[in-house]
């Protein structure tokens, strides 16, 4: 039985790990508020900015809410990555990692539980902001319809891929790498074409953007909002790249876990 074995995969153990994080969330209302706080603040600031631009920009006037939708979807990516990384960091901060990995929990089950928690944390963070935007600005992101689910899915997958790489680095280099969890996603913001089309970017950065699942999501979002069309080609690219990056980042995570076992880091990492 090894880390890749699917026959040994236990949903019960994945559920146990989710329960562990549910207990933390349930017992700490300030955390729940903090999770929703930043997406809500972003929504309010960008909402007013959108209102201003709406009156002064023909581009924006053709689809009010495009910036708000971009802000909310960007937060899905950010919260997904952060949710994955923070759920892992909880184990390091509480010096619990060795307890977990001397139980029958496999690394793949642990990753599955972190993925689930990333999804839950992203929903807790973003949903209140999306609901508040309706009375504030008469804009509902849910008007995007079924494509919204596709965008959400692709961004969560990308966030979790990044989360896996971040946690792999933390496992390998200890809490010195903790800050990666907070800033790594912002390195990709300029080339993800969140607030502007990819065509604005210099040619060489367009090539970089073409390698990011997120740029296809935001292009796809604008296609839905401006042209009322769901671009399957963009969704296909985003999904394909996500599958590739999920595989690669899982490989990096498992390699890092194996190195941590060689170097004795599982017992040492902590505050």
């Amino acid at each position, binding site marked *: 039985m090894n880390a890749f074995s699917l026959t040994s995969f236990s949903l019960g*153990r994945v559920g146990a790990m989710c329960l562990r994080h549910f*207990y933390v969330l349930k*017992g700490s209302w300030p955390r729940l508020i903090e999770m929703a706080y930043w997406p809500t603040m972003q929504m309010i600031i960008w909402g007013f900015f959108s209102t201003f631009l709406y009156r002064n920009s023909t581009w924006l006037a053709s689809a009010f809410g495009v910036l708000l939708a971009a802000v909310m979807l960007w937060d899905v990516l950010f919260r997904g990555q952060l949710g994955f990384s923070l759920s892992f960091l909880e184990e390091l901060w*509480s010096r619990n990692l060795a307890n977990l*990995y001397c139980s029958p929990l496999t690394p793949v089950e642990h990753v599955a539980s972190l993925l689930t928690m990333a999804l839950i944390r992203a929903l807790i963070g973003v949903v209140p902001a999306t609901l508040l935007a309706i009375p504030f600005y008469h804009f509902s992101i849910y008007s995007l319809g079924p494509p919204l689910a596709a965008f959400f899915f692709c961004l969560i997958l990308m966030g979790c891929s990044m989360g896996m790489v971040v946690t792999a680095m933390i496992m390998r280099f200890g809490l010195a790498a903790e800050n990666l969890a907070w800033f790594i996603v912002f390195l990709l913001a300029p080339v993800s074409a969140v607030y502007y089309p990819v065509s604005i970017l210099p040619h060489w950065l367009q090539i970089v953007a073409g390698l990011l699942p997120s740029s296809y999501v935001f292009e796809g979002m604008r296609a839905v909002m401006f042209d009322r069309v769901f671009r399957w080609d963009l969704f296909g690219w985003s999904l394909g790249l996500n599958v590739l990056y999920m595989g690669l980042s899982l490989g990096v995570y498992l390699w890092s876990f194996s190195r941590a076992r060689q170097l004795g880091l599982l*017992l040492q990492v902590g505050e």
Partner: protein
Amino acid sequence: MTDIVAVEALIKHFDAVAAVDGIDFTVKSGETVALLGGNGAGKTTTISMLLGLLKPTSGNIRLFGLDLAKHRHRLLARMNFSSPYVELPHRLTPRQNLMVFARLYGLKDAQTRIETLAKELDLEALMDRKVGSLSAGQKTRVALAKALINRPELLLLDEPTASLDPDTADWVRHYLERYQQQTGAAIMLASHNMGEVERLAKQVLMMRKGKIVDRGSPDDLLFRYSRQNLEEVFLDIARDRRAENAA
């Protein structure tokens, strides 16, 4: 009695340093074996390798007759461990922590098991308090409850009574003896507490610089080193003095 643990030619190098340097030993069911040695002797490294938290550089570890390298997750379900260097999440209560671990070990009777352990380890009044608010002794008892949650057939304990007052430490030792009598579990412990080792261990492995430099029952070691207690034997070995009466 069958071998629960069988270790052969086990080596662990960290770069040029040999943390564990070719050790062999067995632990049988119902037996308590103690690893005794100074800081850096290789005790914790050995226990970490038995748990699969650390990969050996070379050598074999067989647990319950199976190769640990090939059957790690299956074997981990039959064992457990406790160490003062590893903690349970402070923001969770003992009840929540135990429920998480009960599920990780796939217990069908999680609730009953948790209630039983709470009663046996005198944790009932603490079960719904945050672990972070408990005293060192209370945390040790919660950690012991976690280590026993899956009724382990092999229990690995690193400094099981460190930071406990003598009364609580004695109580923990008594509890471990009773658990072993009831279940026939094998216990392996690393400790600096000579009294604890003398009381609990049937076999002592004396470690120094990654090697097992001597072994035997506490009485056997006392006789061979012509000493009154294991602390004096420990000092002899730490200072590289030989046994006067060869085995």
